[in-house]
């Protein structure tokens, strides 16, 4: 203990003399931890919000009953179950719009609500009950939801459908983005009289599948609460995506830590030897070093967790908007610190620090108390190092191949990407060494020969930073290519998909009929196309069924990935059906396959005659003939329509409709609006990815800087002899700058194919698994050029300080090398 203490004191005294080194180390660890824990905080926040949404009603952990076909079911089923002694509580959920904001309406029944449900359990329970039962009723929303809606307590806003909400009141227990009302009120607000969306099971042990079947037939299915949340299933891939990028950033941060710790280790090596000579046993030395790392972890990791909180808070609005627009998931935008992700950040920081310091620790353990001069060791060590790098690269490549061959899903996609990046990074020094060896052989002038030879010696010191740079550059090219490719595909697809000029949703089917008959009489309106919707469920997947009418709008424009030759005839005249790409992939079916589609009455056997892309839609979609939709689905919406309008008449028609029908039109948008909306959704989805990507690049720049700073200390020893033999400092500094930029350029060149491979993996593996669609693989050479320039700039700026230091080094500094040489 005493020994460890004094050893630790000696070790730590080093930082007193080298605050810059300490700063780099702490900064690297803090940045790595910050990025990681920031992403963890975002994920935790989102999960908490999903859980809150379910648990606010059920109290969490329980099971619920959902309609077997998806969608809503009759309230009579609830009564039937209760009358059979099954304790369940009814819930009706649905979406409504207040002004520009979407809200989630949750109708609950307070009398039967489980006691442990947070809403029922709140201290204001009596008020909740009283208010629900009063004639005016009451609508509860979390304070942040009220703020988002910009409404005060007591306000009674109207929904876009013209229904007035009961007076609003703040209730912290209400799930974010939701308004909780009495079940009867919800049925009115959502226009779903006598309908429910789920039943929360109050008494968990009392119901099994058999009993359910005896009472309710197969109308309902029993779902465990954890996998009930379609939301969490749908958003899983989104979060995995975030995690992967967070991890990538963490890895890049670790390169900094490794570089900084490596420097400290090299600088302290004589001290370590002296300590051993003075009687510190090897294990005690390592114990002290480990203790030092633990202290660093706490300090830097703690700072990182705080930084992560800041990052998460900055990114949260974007994440929340992506999740809302993509999945309709409501995330609370006030980030609550959580011990769990803070702890996970510290654990990662500790693990990362140990990993980064591992080689130093192992060396310290094996360190003999005597310094044995080994002047010849460098070349042999260099070759050993290159051989080891190459071997590890091959190993990583094999792992990547295995992940591709045997893995499945998003995780395997990221594994492929991760191992490939690692393989390339490991191989980078080998490649650079090869180039330098070649240069050395070809060089004639002695200074040039020295330039190449000395560069080779520098590789092992710089390699980690270069690897970090390579990974960051490749990720930039890879992600940038994927996003840009997606953007172009998406916009082309939007153009093809959104042919109709106006889209509207009537408040009720009766209103729809009014508008329809009016529209037929309008000369400006060329066609009115019903796009009714119904919901069903195929296997485990919720599926939207959308109707189509035979019209040029579809037959000439509707984008299809694959189609039977007789696609439109089969669709409108036979039992043909179009499936979205996501659905086809999930169900593992393709063109020509038959599909049993649960309808209101029975299963309808249809043939798949086309597959269409449906980007951005987390749910599966079927397109069927409008007449069949009406026939098979008695709960079809009957309110969604597209209008084809004579050119330039769009604004006029929209205005006419608004004036004439007012509240009978629940939603009315023209083509440009909907395109703008879709594009915005798209941009938001990738805002976070892009932000993390940029951060990663910045971190890699810092890594390069840290490494160069490290090297510049050792540089003097290498440069002094050359200087003494007659090269100017300026000359040497210039060579150093050229060398660093050349290294960065090498990394960027290698990053391009690697980035392309990453794009391909994202497009062909990750996106397909995460979202269900596959994009065409595209290349964007201008992006590569930009990334190349970024790499050179990063190298230039990172090298600036060390090189300037070298250029201005006082001759005495260089002379010291000779007097102090060990």
């Amino acid at each position, binding site marked *: 203990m*005493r*020994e460890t203490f*004094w*050893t630790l004191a*000696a070790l730590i*005294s*080093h*930082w*007193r*003399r*080298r605050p810059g080194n300490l700063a780099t180390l702490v900064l690297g660890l803090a940045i790595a931890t910050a990025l990681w824990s920031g992403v963890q905080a975002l994920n935790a926040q989102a999960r908490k919000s999903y859980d809150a949404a379910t648990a606010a009603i059920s109290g969490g952990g329980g099971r619920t009953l959902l309609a077997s076909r998806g969608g809503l079911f009759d309230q009579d089923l609830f009564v039937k179950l209760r009358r059979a002694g099954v304790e369940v509580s009814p819930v009706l959920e649905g979406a409504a719009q207040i002004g520009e904001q979407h809200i989630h309406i949750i109708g609950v029944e307070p009398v039967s609500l489980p006691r442990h449900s947070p809403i029922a359990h709140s201290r204001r329970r009596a008020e909740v009950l009283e208010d629900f039962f009063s004639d005016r009723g009451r609508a509860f929303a979390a304070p942040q939801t009220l703020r988002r809606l910009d409404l005060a307590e007591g306000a009674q806003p109207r929904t876009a459908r013209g229904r007035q909400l009961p007076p609003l009141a703040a209730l912290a227990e209400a799930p974010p983005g939701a308004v909780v009302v009495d079940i009867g009120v919800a049925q009115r607000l959502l226009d779903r009289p006598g309908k429910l969306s789920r039943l929360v099971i109050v008494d968990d042990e009392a119901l099994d599948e058999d009993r359910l079947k005896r009472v309710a037939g197969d109308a309902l299915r029993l779902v465990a609460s954890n996998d009930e949340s379609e939301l969490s299933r749908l958003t899983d891939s989104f979060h995995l995506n975030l995690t992967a990028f967070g991890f990538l950033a963490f890895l890049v941060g670790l390169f900094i830590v490794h570089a900084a710790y490596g420097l400290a280790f090299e600088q*302290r090596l*004589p*001290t370590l*030897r*002296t*300590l*051993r*000579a*003075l*009687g*510190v*046993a*090897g*294990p*005690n030395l390592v114990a002290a070093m480990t203790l030092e790392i633990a202290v660093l972890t706490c300090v830097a990791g703690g700072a990182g967790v705080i930084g992560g909180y800041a990052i998460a808070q900055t990114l949260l609005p974007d994440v929340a908007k992506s999740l809302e627009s993509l999945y309709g998931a409501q995330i609370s935008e006030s980030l609550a610190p959580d011990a769990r992700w803070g702890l996970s950040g510290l654990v990662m920081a500790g693990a990362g620090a140990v990993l980064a310091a591992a080689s130093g620790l192992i060396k310290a353990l094996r360190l*003999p*108390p*005597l310094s044995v001069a080994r002047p010849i060791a460098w070349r042999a060590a260099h070759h050993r190092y290159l051989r080891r790098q190459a071997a590890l690269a091959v190993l990583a490549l094999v792992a990547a191949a295995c992940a591709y061959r045997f893995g499945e899903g998003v995780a395997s996609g990221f594994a492929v990407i991760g191992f490939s990046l690692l393989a390339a990074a490991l191989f980078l020094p080998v490649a650079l060494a090869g180039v330098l060896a070649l240069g050395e052989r070809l060089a004639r002038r002695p200074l040039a020969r020295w330039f190449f030879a000395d560069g080779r010696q520098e590789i092992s010191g710089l390699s980690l930073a270069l690897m970090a740079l390579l990974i960051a550059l490749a990720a930039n090219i890879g992600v940038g290519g994927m996003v840009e490719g997606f953007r172009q595909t998406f916009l082309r697809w939007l153009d093809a998909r959104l042919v109709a000029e106006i889209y509207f949703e009537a408040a009720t089917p009766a209103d729809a009929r009014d508008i329809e008959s009016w529209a037929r009489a309008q000369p400006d309106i060329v066609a009115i196309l019903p796009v009714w919707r119904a919901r069903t469920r195929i296997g485990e997947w919720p599926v939207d069924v959308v109707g189509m009418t035979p019209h040029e709008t579809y037959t000439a424009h509707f984008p299809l990935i694959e189609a039977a030759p007789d696609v439109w005839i089969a669709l409108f005249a036979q039992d043909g059906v179009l499936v979205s790409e996501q659905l086809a992939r999930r169900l593992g079916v393709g063109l020509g396959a038959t599909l049993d589609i649960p309808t209101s009455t029975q299963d309808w056997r249809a043939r798949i005659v086309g597959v269409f892309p449906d980007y951005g839609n987390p749910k599966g979609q079927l397109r069927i003939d409008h007449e069949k939709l009406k026939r098979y689905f008695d709960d079809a919406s009957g309110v969604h329509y597209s209008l084809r309008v004579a050119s330039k008449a769009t604004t006029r028609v929209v205005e006419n409709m608004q004036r004439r029908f007012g509240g009978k039109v629940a939603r009315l948008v023209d083509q440009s609006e909907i395109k703008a909306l879709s594009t915005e959704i798209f941009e938001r989805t990738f805002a976070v990815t892009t932000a993390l990507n940029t951060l990663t690049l910045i971190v890699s720049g810092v890594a390069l800087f840290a490494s160069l700073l490290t090297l510049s200390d050792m540089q003097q020893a290498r440069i002094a002899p050359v200087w003494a033999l007659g090269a100017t400092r300026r000359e040497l500094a210039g060579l150093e700058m050229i060398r660093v930029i050349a290294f960065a350029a090498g990394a960027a060149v290698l990053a391009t194919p690697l980035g392309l491979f990453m794009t391909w993996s994202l497009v062909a593996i990750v996106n397909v698994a995460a979202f269900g669609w596959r994009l065409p693989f595209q290349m964007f050479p201008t992006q590569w050029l930009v990334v190349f320039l970024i790499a050179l700039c990063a190298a230039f700026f990172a090298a600036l300080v060390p090189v300037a230091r070298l250029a201005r080094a006082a001759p005495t500094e260089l002379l010291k090398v000779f007097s102090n040489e*060990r």
Partner: protein
Amino acid sequence: MPENLEATRESAPMLRVEGLRKSYPTPQGRIPVLRGVDFTLDAGASLALTGESGSGKSTLLHLVGALDDADSGEVILDGVALTLLSEHARAAIRREKIGVVFQQFNLIPSLTVAENLSFQAHLGGRYDAAWQKELTHRLGLAELSARYPEELSGGQQQRVAIGRALAVRPKLLLADEPTGNLDEATGDKVMSLALDLVAATGCAFLMATHSERLAARLQRRVRLDSGVLAAQ
């Protein structure tokens, strides 16, 4: 001199070295450095070890200082056979019973003079404030105690190293070319100081040097030649 040798045989010597052998592996095979070295050293006695460069002086010193393993033979320090000890126990011996002064001083650059001086004593749990103070004073380091090693001259650094080695009141002080990095005058001064302190602490003192002049200042001297001792 013969009286002295007589005396060492009677009472148990502080250090006894018997049949010590050591060889190093090279690509050309093992090269023997020590081929059976025997000698003893009493408490309070000093012995100079001379020899050509590469004659094995440092190797012998390292083996005696529990810094390295011998191939065979025995080093018995204060009645304890070092060769039989674990790595851990040998580290403890180094902390508590042996002071070493290196040619390169080997101070810890991030610690001040005062911290360096007391470091080994703290490490071995043998810190003694009064002795520390006396040492600092006698070595003339009081003025310098807040400085860092890189701010000291070579002679000053070596004084710190000697102080550090003696701060634990070792049973044995080892010095490996302690003045090798110093000019003659400084070296002589440092040597005088070291000898004074050795006399004051009563420890055994073994010094390797290639300087006959320096060796003459110690009580005895032996010469290492081709891996064996030749008494002089």
